[in-house]
């Protein structure tokens, strides 16, 4: 399973409680769409650690890294190079 499939699957299952792929596009902003709130972002960070062994530093907790499927995938790929 690709990084994108894993990330999409997690967001859909954990925050949208569905497996309907049409409910989330890879560009959707989690904040603007209200998918993830401030406590939810901690869940995403746990997920990155557990699934990809990616440790998120304080200065990396920015929307550019975490606020969409595309951003998360790019962030994971950068951190696991």
């Amino acid at each position, binding site marked *: 399973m690709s990084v994108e499939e894993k990330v999409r699957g997690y967001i859909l*299952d*954990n925050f*949208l*409680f*569905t*497996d309907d792929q049409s409910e989330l596009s890879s560009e959707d902003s989690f*904040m603007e769409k*209200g998918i*993830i*709130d*401030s*406590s*939810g*972002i*901690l*869940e995403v960070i*746990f997920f990155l650690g557990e699934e990809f062994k990616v440790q998120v530093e*304080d200065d990396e*907790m*920015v*929307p550019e890294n975490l*606020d969409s499927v595309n951003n998360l995938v790019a962030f994971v790929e950068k951190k696991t190079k």
Partner: protein
Amino acid sequence: MCGIAGICNISSSESITEQKLAAMIDMLYHRGPDGKGFYVSQGIGLGHARLSIIDLDTGKQPIHNEDKTVWVTFNGEIFNYIELRDELRKKGHKFYTTTDTEVIVHLYEEYGDGFVSHLNGQFAIGLWDTKRKKLVLVRDRVGIVPLFYKQEAGSLIFASEIKAILAVTNEKPRLNPYALDQLMTFWSPVSPNTVFQDIYELSPGQLLVLENGKISKSNYWDWQFPESEDEYSSAGVDDLADKLHELLVDATKIRLRSDVPVGAYLSGGLDSSVLTSLIHHYSDVPLRTFSIGFEDAKLDESSYQKEMIKHLGADHSTIKCSNSDIADNFQKTIWHTESPVLRTAPVPMSLLSGLVHKQNYKVVLTGEGSDEVLGGYDIFKEAKIRQFWARNPQSKFRPILLKRLYPYLDLSKGQAYLQNFFGTAIQTPDLLWFSHLPRWETTARCKDFFSSDMKAQLNNDAIDRIAETFPSSMSNWHAFNRSQYIEAKSLMGGYLLCSQGDRALMSNSVEGRFPFLDHRIIEFANRVHPKHKMKVLNEKYLLKKAESRYLPKSIINRYKQPYRAPDIPAFFSSKGSPEYVHALLSKEKIADYGYFDANRVERLIKKINRGMAIGYKDNMSLVGILSTQIWHHTFIENNN
């Protein structure tokens, strides 16, 4: 408190029997276990379940005037009844009881429908004028005492609780989907809606008249705030504090009037500490207090309670609430609330009233209302910071003030996310509901779980329509006052005084009394400038100034802790879940009742079982879904 019920024919000619009224009153036994009474005449029937508090011997209701042309069934208390009775006697009225209830019929004779403006109290009233064949229903100014009604087959049916209406209705009860949509946004349906289709509440401060086959409603009171700076009181802050103290002393004293012993809730917070101090210093009533504590140390306030008990020398009883207590009592609580809830907090409040009842007390004073009237909630502070931030939305420093409000927030971590949450509507700070938008949008995420059928029925977003319920003058009010109004009318009126207030108290036949909600205090406080209510970010500043001399400094300066009870952990633990939770959250039951998407709920439960459901949304969603399922099971599926 008591329970009232009645039926009044509008166009029906069906006779109203005492048996039918008794079926209604029997459903209200918990509100009034000390006796029942009925008045039946052509086209009208009034019923009453009595909780004896004043005039234990001759206070049986319904009560009438001198020539039995005016009858009343009454739930509540008229705290200024002694003064009113003296005035009415001087005008020649003859009393046959020493109750507070009897002043109502004589006041009506004197002032007609205007009688209600003379009352200082908490009440739901059903009054019948035999000469005019006229029914008057009235509810108190802020909504302490409930009153519901339904029009059916040419009759108006009314009662203190909906279950009494369900006892005689010929229509099968069903959910009002718009009301559930509102509840899952604002924590309660918007008045007059209830979650039952075609059953309404009489709104706080409202009077309903049924005469000549026509029903008319009017508002006799509402929260009003200055529309310009010069309408605020010009008195200095010291004088304002003195006046507030004077009003609080009187509001408390008249709420100690009773022919049975009166106790008080003591949470350890500022408001209950103020109240218990006032009782201690300004009355001869022995100080008897009650509190609840939690196993979870994060939610527990026992240390502050102990400090106040020591300070005042109170005779105190406390009860510890465990997670399993909440799960074990949740179904019963929903029978009392008659409404889904988003938090489990009403359950411990019911356990607390149970403790009061066991100690043979029927009446307690509580500090509820102080936060709304005198500016205590975090949401007011939060809005103030967001307003300040909105003046310079690009500022990186202004949102740091949020840390003053939520010290546990680590703004160095995930700052963008926190700023996004609190920055909601920051581009539109003049929005009337600016203060409440973050809360409402967060709560509304619960609706993601609605089934496609439910979503299809809901055309409009609840938030978009809320402005229809606001007074036209609101746009001229100070932003702080707007948030006070919204809080008082939505969360306080719709949830805190109902599910977490009256229903939790009356589930054990205990009457709550609310000195901070004395209308004289509200009217005074509404003319106090917001800068005196919240000085910079110091909440309830005027109250602290007025009462600090009576309280330990640690209570005055303590960090304000919201009352919370465990939510998800109450129902899911390493020991498993209660059988009813399994049954009502099963895919089959979720699909059968039809309100929620069974697959999404299943995924939420899996997430909970993985120990990953930690956020507000997950907690509120689970409690909201479970309580809706219980509500349906209790009132729709098993309604007999």
